């Protein structure tokens, strides 16, 4: 696949590669720099695997100061940077460039402080999402955002993409759960924003930084809110003969005054694959399946699930199963959370991430099915129904370049459909390179210019993750580079 344009690398930087690597070693230490071909190849792509670029070099610093020194050097020498967490981006957010240095935060993964009284944890951002909950779990707390990749993905990546998860219907996404950051700016300076307190002072820079896809700075430390775990949680499975019925059921639940912690939706192709993989007890004779989870004490859970079951009965479900015990609950979630992986074992797929108003669900799902039929491709749907965040998985054969191209076209059509239905291009995966050229479907030139002025404020010369988020044309001309002498190692 190659329909997304990537800028040509700057030859002047490529020519200096050997000297730059030497300088990076001098700055970050020999153990922190990866410059050999095999080593670099491990970083040539992320989870948007159709695109690959060999980075100039990879640096894995162990301290904020080391990140600052590397950024300061690259700033002075006009070298681009691609920040990287665990490389699980589904939109090419961590895709390297031949003339860019990848800075990975994976070695900065310590928990620095846990305070269960003031209810925060201060961590280095290379920590994985799940490791935060693991660190505070023994005290009865957890970190709320739970993207499906939480075993692997880093907090740094979550901050860059403002990641969500299945339980954000109740607990919000990353931006609602981060209180403060320590961030290295492109010029190598270090800023601290926010802290342990609940609202940061002055302008809301945290809001701008979280979700900026690594374009404003590299966040190396963060203070996150931790929450007390509920007494218990239990999901129920409600199957329907049509997606329309399932979507009516979702609306009725929300309108009834109950906000479950999660409402997940799967269509038949997704159910079949996930059930084969996880043996979770999903019904196989339904067109649509909802996983609805509530929290509380045993009695509260029983009461709420019975109430929801009552609402569902009015819609006429084909099946209705309440999880019997923790083991079954775990299986039910395992099936859902491994959906992408399980489908990936069957076929290559492109995972879309548009969000739509719930009232449009039935119409949009039908249209998605029509679009994929038109391109001769299969599609499975598994997504967060409570908040309208769709994840159509368009299946194709990556070895057939024509199919791959058709999959990309189908994806673009689906995202245009989401915007036209009143939604947006991406609910939690980010823009990256994947949706970069579709940004004008959602935003006017004035809207984009306003965002790009913020980019220029933090990174005047557009050195940080520059090929992402904004269409390549119509960008402000980078401020002319001062004729600074390159800092040589010798």
């Amino acid at each position, binding site marked *: 696949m190659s329909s997304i344009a990537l800028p040509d690398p700057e030859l002047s930087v490529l020519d200096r590669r050997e000297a730059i690597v030497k300088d990076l070693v001098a700055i970050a230490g020999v153990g922190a720099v990866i410059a050999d071909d095999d080593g670099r190849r491990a970083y040539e792509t992320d989870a948007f695997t159709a695109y690959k670029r060999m980075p100039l070099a990879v640096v894995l610093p162990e301290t904020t100061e080391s990140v600052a020194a590397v950024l300061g050097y690259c700033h002075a020498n006009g070298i681009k940077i691609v920040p990287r967490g665990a490389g699980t981006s589904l939109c090419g957010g961590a895709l390297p460039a031949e003339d860019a240095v990848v800075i990975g935060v994976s070695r900065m993964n310590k928990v620095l402080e846990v305070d269960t009284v003031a209810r925060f944890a201060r961590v280095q951002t290379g920590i994985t999402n799940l490791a935060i909950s693991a660190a505070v779990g023994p005290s*009865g707390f957890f970190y709320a955002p739970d993207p499906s990749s939480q075993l692997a993905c880093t907090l740094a990546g979550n901050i860059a993409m403002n990641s969500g998860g299945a339980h954000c219907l109740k607990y919000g996404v990353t931006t609602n759960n981060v209180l403060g950051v320590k961030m290295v700016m492109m010029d190598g300076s270090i800023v601290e924003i926010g802290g342990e307190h609940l609202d940061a002072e002055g302008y809301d820079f945290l809001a701008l930084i979280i979700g900026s896809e690594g374009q404003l700075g590299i966040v190396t430390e963060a203070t996150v809110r931790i929450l007390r775990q509920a007494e218990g949680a239990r999901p129920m499975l409600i199957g329907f003969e049509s997606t329309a019925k399932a979507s009516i059921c979702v609306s009725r639940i929300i309108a009834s005054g109950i906000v479950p912690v999660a409402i997940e939706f799967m269509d038949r192709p997704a159910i079949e694959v996930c059930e084969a993989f996880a043996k979770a007890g999903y019904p196989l004779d339904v067109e649509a399946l909802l996983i609805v989870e509530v929290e509380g004490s045993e009695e509260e859970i029983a009461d709420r699930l019975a109430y929801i079951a009552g609402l569902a009965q009015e819609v006429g479900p084909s099946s209705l199963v309440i999880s019997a015990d923790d083991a079954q609950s775990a299986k039910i979630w395992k099936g859902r959370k491994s959906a992408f992986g399980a489908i990936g074992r069957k076929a290559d797929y492109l995972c879309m991430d548009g969000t739509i108003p719930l009232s449009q669900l039935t119409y949009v799902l039908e249209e998605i099915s029509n679009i994929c039929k038109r391109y001769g491709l299969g599609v499975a749907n598994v997504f967060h129904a409570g908040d309208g965040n769709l994840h159509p998985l368009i299946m194709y054969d990556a070895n057939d370049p024509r199919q791959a191209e058709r999959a990309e076209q189908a994806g673009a059509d689906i995202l245009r459909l989401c915007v036209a239905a009143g939604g947006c291009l991406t609910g939690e995966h980010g823009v990256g390179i994947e949706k970069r050229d579709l940004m004008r479907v959602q935003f*006017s030139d004035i809207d984009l210019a306003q965002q790009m002025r*913020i980019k220029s404020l933090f990174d005047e010369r557009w050195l940080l993750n520059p090929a992402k988020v904004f269409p390549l044309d119509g960008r402000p001309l980078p401020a002319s580079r001062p004729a600074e002498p390159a800092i040589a190692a010798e």
Partner: protein
Amino acid sequence: MSEILKPAADWELKSILAQLGEQNLPVEIVGAGTKRAIGHPVMAAAVITTASLRGISLYEPTELVMSARAGTPVSQVEAELASRGQMLPFEPLDYGPALASRPGLQTIGAVFATNNSGSRRITVGSARDHLIGVRGVNGRAEIFKSGGRVMKNVTGYDVARGLTGSWGTLAVLTEVTFKVAPLPDDVATIVYSGLPEDLAIELMSLAMGTPYEVSGTVHLTPAHAARIATPPLAGETTSLTALRVENFMKSVRYRKGRLIETLKAYGQPVELDLEASLGFWGEIRRMAFAPASDAILWRVSTSPRKAAELVATLRRHMPVEATYDWSGGLVWLEIPDCADAGAADIRRAVAIAGGHSTLIRAREAVRREVEVFQPQAPAIEKLSRGLKRAFDPRGLLNPGRMYQTM
């Protein structure tokens, strides 16, 4: 007397700002003006009010989402929500009574422009957390939008949230879209009397560390508690510490019982039923603990761990009455009128404890001299100036309101 401009449409606001821009005339931005006395007094020949940008433009109860034009009164928004059994989850404060204006006037745009959140913020998040989209006009006289009407949206930078708490200095919001929530079936409050501040914060933090989803934690020192008029708390002469639980009826009864049991070392609380609870938390929302007077009022945001000590330190320099919300993370300090509003001592104490402070109420002459918002670290100030330039390069909008030279 300044000229008052009342645009009724985005394009009208755009053309007003374009004209002012051509003449380099700065302008004060207000909604209903209930918070006009917060911040440095704005020196401007004209005032733009969003009062004529009114009306609820979208309400989908089954999606928990509403859009309203910026000048729509919060009272109208809440009445519409209540008619469908829903509410603004973050419970914005009504500064009116504390600032010698009437209650119930503030606009929904101003709630987000000032990131105004009340007691439930501790559990459900702030106004900013609930904002999902805006339309507005920036200081360049450009109509722009950010975000949208769906709850999950990471398309491009989060400019909408980035504008919360900017007090009209970056752009004039014309429409806001936000998440709403169902009204709880039942509310109960348990109130402990006579606890000293450090123990009260300990109690509130413990309650927040339980799985019972406490949705409000507030402690009032005796003089503040005495201003509460809700029976059976009216006439109270000692401090009050209140915890709120909200949910369906069975759950509220269960959780209240579990909380009283877990916290029994702190004494036997008074229990408030639904009606009394609504009365009490309504008074907290209208800031009944600090009604309009000459006394100075500060808002301090800090770690709950440090709040009691911070106030104890200040008492060595001045008499302080305090109300602690957000389990101690938000402190309202009331001190007697004085020349610098106590800024030097308060800012020093806050610097040690961590967090920030905002002067909420003081005479205009005092607000001219004292830094009203927390002074910024040099690196952040540089970014703030840059952000101001990015939205309002001529410095037309609310000049000096947050920071005197910005």
